[in-house]
């Protein structure tokens, strides 16, 4: 009887992963393969222990509830932020994505005035850090296609 489904599934995935890496490592030279082979063997043994243990008892993992609306929206915006940085430039992408994230994370009860205040403060923070990174730390942040000299 399975008592810990998460551990069982994790164990099976890890065994498949170990076999894949073991196979890949076995194609390498003796010096390049000795350590990966040792570690994948250890991973394989630990995964088997995990599977074996999942039939005996469960170690509960306390997780927070997931917001099914906010998390996909946040992940998509986060990815879009990264994707567009080199295309539309760091500052413009950051300003748009930052303010979008404020809206996504705002609770219904928050006044529009407050949200606008957050957006203005956030935009100021972004510009300040952008200047700091670009001019003081000399990080060449992407300018984007539109603002390129």
């Amino acid at each position, binding site marked *: 009887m399975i008592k810990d489904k998460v551990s069982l599934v*994790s164990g099976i995935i890890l065994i498949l992963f170990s076999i894949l890496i073991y196979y890949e490592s076995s194609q390498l030279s003796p*010096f*390049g393969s000795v*350590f990966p082979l*040792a570690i994948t063997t250890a991973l394989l043994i630990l995964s088997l222990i995990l599977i074996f243990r999942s039939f005996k008892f469960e170690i509960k993992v306390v997780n927070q509830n997931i917001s099914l609306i906010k998390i996909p929206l946040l992940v998509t915006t986060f990815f879009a932020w990264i994707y567009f940085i080199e295309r539309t430039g760091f500052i413009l992408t950051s300003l748009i994505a930052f303010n979008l994230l404020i809206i996504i994370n705002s609770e219904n009860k928050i006044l529009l005035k407050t949200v606008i205040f957050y957006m203005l403060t956030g935009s100021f923070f972004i510009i300040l850090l952008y200047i700091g990174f670009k001019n003081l730390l000399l990080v060449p942040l992407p300018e984007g296609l539109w603002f390129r000299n």
Partner: protein
Amino acid sequence: MTNIFTDFLSSLSLINLGLAFSGVLAGIIIGALPGLSATMAVAILVPFTFALEPSSGLIVLGAIYTGAIFGGSWSAILINTPGTPSAVATTFDGYPLAKKGDGDLAMSISCISSFIGGIIGVICLALFAPPLASISLMFGPTEYFWLAVLGLTLISTLAEGDNIKSLIGACLGLLLSMVGVAVVGGDMRMTWNISFLNSGIEIVSAMIGLFCIPVILDLTSMKGKHLNESETPKSLRLKESFFLVFSKKFQAVRGALIGTFIGILPGAGGSIASIVSYGEAKRSSKNKDNFGKGEPEGLIASETANNATVGGGFIPTLCLGIPGTPPDAVILGALLVQGIRTGDTLFTQQSSIVYTFIFGLFLATIMLLPLGLLMGRYAYKSIIKIPREILIPIIIFLTIIGSYSIQNNILNVYFMFFFGLIGWILNRAGFKASPIVLGLVLGQIAEQGFVQSYIIGNAQENIIANYFAKPISIVLVILILMGLFLPTLKKIYNKKRRNLNDQR
């Protein structure tokens, strides 16, 4: 003696004091930002030091380094993301303390502990540098391998949660560290034809992703306050913090000595030091069960050790020309540019530069205390006051800008994002981020030691003896076995004793 006194006075010049102050300040800010490591902080500012006197240049670099190592604890405490890899163990008890509403206490304890660790490290550097440097030469490839394994087993058995899953996490971290060119043999491994992976996985971007993104996603789903407020919000809780650290003075000194000792070993660095110190503190503590739930003793152990590595790391750097930690390597480069030759003769022929530098480092560590306490207080207050609606975009912005600035490459940001999502899924399945990150950090040291020992053992036709028959290796293997099995054996013993008592 007169010369040393003159060096001390010269370190007290207005310029040196100002440089130490601004170095600590800049270091704290840079170290607190996830993605900007102590190495980067030092590297960015090296060119500015070329215009200064050699000793002043060294003072500013040492001060930045000291500040950055301490600054790494801020983000570890406030947003569960170590600013530098050496602050990984600080997240274990720092963040739970902040969540409970004792973030101000955690910030003050971290500052006082960093100060103690830093001072003891510098004292060891000033008094015992040449004899201590010889210790680092006693560590060969096998000893480095076992030291890395010790760090990994300790983090796996000490971090909150499931030990088997933590050990699996450590193995995953080690496998991640193997991506790219093999340290011995030069094979191209696990790159899946992605050219960006040829140089391996960037540790800092993986660390930001694995620690930060699960926190962001949890904050998004969370209802109510992200951190509880302290019941005494207007005080620095200085008295309480000093009392707590003072009541654990022995543990603090022990943490600092562990940090100094591990700092001496080239390449080992603050991440192993803080984990070993944390492990030792937990092992010997009366409050073992509170570790990982916001135990100040855990925070003291981690922070004294990682700041002590600053002084410890300079010992092999100055005496042998072998950098103890990555920032030391950058500082060593700056020393060579300034025309200073490291080695035994440095303490005799160019003693004025060395002692002015050591005193400067000492002063910088002293400045860390008031600066860290004041700034830490405001950082904590700001994090508490910032509404979640704006805090989440700020953290995301910092993760992006931080991982981009590592190599000025957008692919690092993609990797950070990818690792973050994987880390979140793993976290929900009970696999914690800290063993994976430590595996990634220690992977190269472990592999190099393992393969080199294998080659030496093979040449001597006795592989087993090469791994297990050296005195330091034996001690390390015993510690590893104790770390792995002692907690389980103790549990079984206690259970049996309880059963026997029940039967009576």
